[in-house]
């Protein structure tokens, strides 16, 4: 008898049910772009963590006798400064590597603020409904009526220029997207049976909102958060470029670009590389966001 059972078990064994992570990874790894995005992102994160070790020079060190040295492969370049130096003789490669830290930090902090605040507001709006919902959503409409950079500029005008205030400004700019997503998801989920049964079982509104409903609306929020990273980095660089974000001598990519603007004709490399760094980082997060969207939500698949 027991032999028969084990024989059946042996027959069944090859059909393995995939865990959710495996299933997700299989869907995600289907897209080469998504893998490229993930690879780039991991590389950037490593770059940010080990900036102090990788960077050949300190980011603020001014080598006065080497101002505006061209990149190593151009005439007049040296191996000491692979991507050349800026107008005061700082190593561009080292500044870019340290800039990775800032850019990822800007993305992380502004998305974290925006996501948590947005989820709370969206859940409340979708769950409570009535005038609370109307007030929150109208406020979001106002914020969406302003072009993103204009809203960020307005916030910076109030708070004053600077890296930290730029992060707040970007968090505010990103906010409406999370609120709308969270609200829509809650409204779609609230009527479903598992929510009803949890309610009947005596779950309070906080438990219903955060522990019953929220986990089931995470997919679009994760996708939006990833894409939010790229717009945060792009907007922070734009603010830095306009002189409203990070202030010199901070090695933030946008302000590095703005700093060197007058030397663009004589030394194009001071402008080329910081921009390239912004492009690659933003591209990495966009690729990853697209891949996550396709993997997490087949309905959204293009």
């Amino acid at each position, binding site marked *: 008898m027991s032999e028969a059972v084990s024989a059946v078990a042996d027959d069944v064994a090859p059909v393995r049910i995939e865990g959710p992570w495996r299933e997700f990874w299989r869907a995600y790894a289907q897209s080469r772009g998504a893998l490229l995005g993930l690879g780039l992102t991991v590389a950037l994160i490593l770059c940010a963590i080990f900036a102090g070790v990788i960077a050949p020079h300190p980011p603020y060190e001014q080598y006065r006798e080497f101002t505006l040295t061209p990149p190593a492969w151009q005439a007049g370049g040296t191996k000491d400064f692979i991507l050349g130096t800026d107008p005061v003789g700082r190593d561009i490669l080292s500044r870019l590597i340290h800039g990775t830290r800032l850019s990822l930090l800007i993305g992380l902090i502004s998305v974290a603020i925006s996501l948590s605040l947005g989820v709370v507001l969206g859940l409340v709006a979708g769950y409570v409904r009535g005038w609370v919902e109307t007030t929150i959503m109208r406020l979001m409409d106002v914020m969406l009526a302003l072009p993103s950079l204009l809203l960020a*500029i307005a916030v910076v005008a109030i708070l004053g220029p600077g890296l930290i205030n730029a992060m707040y400004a970007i968090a505010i700019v990103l906010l409406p997207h999370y609120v709308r997503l969270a609200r829509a998801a809650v409204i779609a989920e609230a009527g479903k049976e598992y929510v009803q049964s949890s309610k009947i079982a005596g779950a309070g509104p906080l438990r219903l909102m955060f522990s019953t409903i929220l986990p089931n609306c995470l997919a679009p929020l994760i996708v939006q958060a990833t894409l939010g990273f790229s717009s945060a980095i792009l907007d922070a660089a734009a603010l830095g470029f306009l002189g409203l974000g990070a202030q010199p001598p901070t090695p933030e990519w946008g302000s590095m670009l703005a700093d060197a603007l007058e030397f663009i004709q004589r030394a194009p490399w001071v402008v080329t590389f910081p921009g390239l760094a912004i492009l690659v980082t933003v591209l990495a997060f966009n690729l990853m966001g697209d891949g996550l969207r396709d993997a997490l939500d087949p309905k959204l698949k293009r």
Partner: protein
Amino acid sequence: MLAFILRRAALIIPTFIGVTLLAFALIHLIPGDPVENLSGERGMDPARRERLLHQFGLDRPLPVQYGEYIGQVLKGDLGTSLTTHEPVLDEFLTLFPATIELAFFAMLLAVAIGLPAGILAALKRNTVADYAVMGVSLTGYSMPIFWWALLLILFFSVQLGWTPVSGRIAVEYDVPAATGFMLIDTLKIHDWAALRSALSHLILPSIALGTIPLAVIARMTRSSMLEVLREDYVRTARAKGLPRWRVILVHALRNALIPVITVIGLQVGLLLSGAILTETIFSWPGVGNWLIHGVQSRDYPVVQGGILLIATIVISVNLVVDLLYGVVNPRIRHA
């Protein structure tokens, strides 16, 4: 239909009120003394401050101030610029045609290239052409446009010397500002050399500003087209034996364009964000450049008025897009 229009139009009133509240609050939220901010004078004597406080109405309760502000806005009085001492609204209206001209050509370029590229990618799905279009458009979508603009200047203006670096027209041409649109004004006086100069000034900023909308349109057209090509009516049209181009251009494209048109309409906000950067780099005399100067020189009436006006424009354009969408798609109208 009229009921639909009125219902949609009524929805923007709370949004507009919100925007005026934001613009009004700006003057009070900005660090420093509102009187100094509004007059642009620092360290004035108390008597003068008292007089200005009264003149600006800042000594009244906030709700009264807001009511007065709304009254002024509705009369078209947005205050006076601190740097030029011109009315803010007049300055905006003088500069706005330059921004429209730039945005229009950027959009023209984005549609003229983005639409066919998206169609091509959808028809040649999973081929090299598709990957190329999608790769380029994702890069365009991720582009920091202030940097892109600089690269364009470096290559086309500095290296090749084909286009001018900045401005709207070469200084030697004296074009009377009849409409404010440089191309129309030069056409009006039949000055072909001036028209050429204006066009050569327009091309690089249009490319820089049009890149992101182009990428968005190409991506959107591709996905919308792919969806439509799977529909039954496309199969029916093919089964009827219609030529392939006819099925694609008449049956598929017309339906695929509906979401694309909405996306094009909704790019206005994006265009104005981009215009701030593009105009700054090319010294284009438009409202984006003006607003950034306002922020940098702490010209708060300009900042306040500029934000209010730009938001109003975005709200109105979105409303028009909404209405057009309802006209095209009856399912929305009757929802």
